[in-house]
């Protein structure tokens, strides 16, 4: 540590060159930080902590529905605390382009108890329970589509025909606007929740069936046995179920989007390979033009090992400095991106594990690019170097 100022001075001997190299390293690790965030949204989709929910869906396929009669039987499974059910809707408001902006789900009122991350005021909840055509909208969707409490919104385009309107148009009254309890859960604010009973009475077909059940378990340790018990209820019937934890369900879904991990890995390999070459060149240049100075250091009594250490420290410092700035920039940019997207993107902030992997990469790359120049510095002979041979 006592040589820090020496390493620092050597690093900024050529200010422009070091600055440019730092900016290259910064760009590389900015990308590393951003892509790590993208990857982690796909590796582990955000879910609220400590909810222990199981998703019960049809084993045949996600589009197949389940009989409502299962509710009682799932409820009677030991260790099941609460059961809610829901139905996917799949329409749009005004323009088909808004489909991504607001996912619609028909829910039973108990759904709100199972999802504590849906934050709703008590009187709005009461209004929802007393209004058959009532709907709750997430804050992000309400903002994006410019909707407020009291609005009547027609939703159309879903597979379900509405007996009363004769076509696929369903009209809901917005009675509440909910928020997500945590920033990482803001994805749920792109939902429109409405009452399953209203939906069930109006639908042209499939009355009395639900899309999926959500069972809350008292203790995560019981998840596996509860899942097995729920699946046993409908075994060998024509509506066999598949019960899995919410995490597993979400993960299986995002996995279907594609192998994001592989794509991110390939991009980072290209970025880091280029970075090694680029900074390696900078370090080689830096050592080459400083050979007489290194010789002077050795003349003064610096050992071979300390010269090696000095050059290595310089290259590690270069990468760690640029890399840290890059990751910091990513950390600042991610919330800005999330905010700018109006809740449609929800990248998690850069976590400790990303910082640690990042630092390991920085030090690793620093050693790789510094090693050859450092060995050159270590092996130089004082007489030759001072003579400029």
């Amino acid at each position, binding site marked *: 540590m006592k040589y820090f100022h020496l390493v620092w001075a050597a690093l900024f001997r050529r200010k422009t060159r070091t600055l*440019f190299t730092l900016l290259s390293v910064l*760009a590389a690790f900015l990308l590393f930080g951003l892509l790590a965030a993208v990857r982690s949204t796909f590796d582990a989709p955000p879910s609220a902590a400590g909810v222990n929910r199981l998703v019960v869906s049809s084993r045949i396929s*996600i589009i197949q529905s389940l009989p409502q009669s299962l509710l009682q039987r799932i409820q009677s499974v030991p260790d099941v605390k609460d059961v809610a059910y829901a139905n996917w809707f799949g329409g749009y408001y005004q323009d088909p382009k808004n489909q991504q902006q607001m996912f619609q789900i028909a829910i039973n009122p108990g759904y709100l108890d199972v999802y504590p991350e849906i934050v709703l005021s008590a009187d709005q909840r009461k209004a929802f329970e007393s209004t058959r055509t009532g709907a709750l909208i997430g804050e992000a969707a309400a903002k994006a589509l410019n909707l407020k409490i009291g609005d009547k919104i027609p939703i159309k385009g879903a*597979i379900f025909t509405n007996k009363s309107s004769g*076509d*696929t148009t369903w009209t809901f009254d917005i009675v509440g606007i909910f928020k997500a309890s945590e920033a990482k859960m803001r994805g749920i604010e792109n939902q429109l929740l409405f009452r399953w009973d209203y939906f069930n009475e109006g639908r042209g077909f499939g009355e009395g069936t639900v899309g999926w059940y959500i069972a809350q378990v008292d203790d995560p340790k019981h998840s596996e046995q509860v899942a097995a018990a729920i699946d046993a209820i409908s075994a060998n019937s024509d509506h066999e179920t598949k019960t899995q934890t919410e995490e597993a369900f979400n993960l299986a879904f995002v996995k279907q989007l594609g192998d994001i991990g592989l794509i991110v890995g390939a991009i980072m390999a290209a970025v880091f390979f*280029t970075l090694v070459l680029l900074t390696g*060149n*900078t370090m*080689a240049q830096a050592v080459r033009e400083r050979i007489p100075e290194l010789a002077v250091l050795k003349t003064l009594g610096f050992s071979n090992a300390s010269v090696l250490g000095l050059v290595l420290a310089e290259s590690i410092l270069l990468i760690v400095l640029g890399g840290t700035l890059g990751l910091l920039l990513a950390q600042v940019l991610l919330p800005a991106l999330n905010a700018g997207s109006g809740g449609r993107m929800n990248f998690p902030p850069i976590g400790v594990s990303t910082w640690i992997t990042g630092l390991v990469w920085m030090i690793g790359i620093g050693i790789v690019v510094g090693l050859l120049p450092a060995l050159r510095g270590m092996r130089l002979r004082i007489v030759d170097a001072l003579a400029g041979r």
Partner: protein
Amino acid sequence: MNLLINVITVVVVIAVIAVLVVVPIAVVGILALLLAVWMATTRTGRQAWSVTRVGIATIPQRLGSSSVIVVGIAGVVGVLVALLAMGEGFRQTLQQTGDADTAIIMRGGATAELSSGVSRDDFTLIAQEPGIVKDAKGKPVASPELVVVANLPKKSSGTDANVEIRGVGEQAFELRPNVKIAEGRSFKPGLRELVVGKGALAQFTGLSVGSKLNLANQQWDVVGVFTSGDAHESELWGDVETVSTTYRRTGYQSITVRLTSPEAIETLKAGIAADPRLKVDVKTTGDYYSAQSENLSKIIRIIGIVIGSIMGIGAVFGALNTMYAAVATRAREIATLRAIGFRGLPVVVSVLLETMLLALLGGILGAAVTWLIFNNYTVSTLGSNFSQVVFAFKVSPALIASGLKWALAIGFVGGVFPALRAARLPVTTALREL
């Protein structure tokens, strides 16, 4: 004065990038040709050419640092072209699925087949509408179709993914002449038999000819494999009536018909609009499938450009470093040239040209590597019917051209500042420098 020059330089740099982004690659070629003519015919041009030759001749002495430009830009262009090729592949696969000669009819307001429903009566009515081609027996070429989703394990991950099962009418093969049975035979109506698309066969386990499949608690036989070169290849096809009874559906979801001509879409639309019993939307399959690809290919494009830009900024600084070092080592030589009468312009042109040639080399290298690895590389993602769509990366000449334009833009930015420094170096100081 210096400030003014710097401001002008920045403006020129931005203008050049903008021009490179906008103009087609042919215009870039013409500009290069004009440069060559200028170099061959005018005095300053010939000077520039000889200085450039000296610069290029000394590259082998700076192989390490010059390769920073080449490899750095190869990385940018490679990643950019690969990502754009993914979006392009998805867009092409879906776009090829539709054309202007066939029309798809779904319930009014439906955005995808999965959220549509058309009754059996509707089918009978629609098939009689004008504008639809009749086959040799005088039957309209129309296929009522039903899409359901099944869970099957994927080869790559071993986990379940959604596969689309399409029940098709007997005219489906006449309707889509590009669908050909490549192995085995077609399914027989009324039997629980399936033909699988080549893409689905490659992505999912247990779909080879002769295997048995459990769908909705019933046993199905795979009797054939089909190719179509479009999104249908990701699907499993069976008889629409059999699929419908297996999944206990009462109606269909969409009707696809062959039009007598692309203009007949208007006739068909008018005919359907005139019938108050029908509440359906008519679109050409071309329009329908293009709309399906729009969102995802746009997102991939934006991601590609953002990642490419960040990498490009990194590569610019690498190029700047290399070229500043190159100018510094050649400072005496450049000063000598200027002392014996060479003007600033040839010096600027030579440094700039050298950087851009290295950049072009990097761009070609990156595009070539991407083409070798990723052209026709097959992946799959979730499509609008909530099931896997298999598609291949398409490294098209247009994408390679835009990759090369990026390379030239990066080379230009990385070369212009060192070039100006070379030209503005005071001759006397440069000559005295060791």
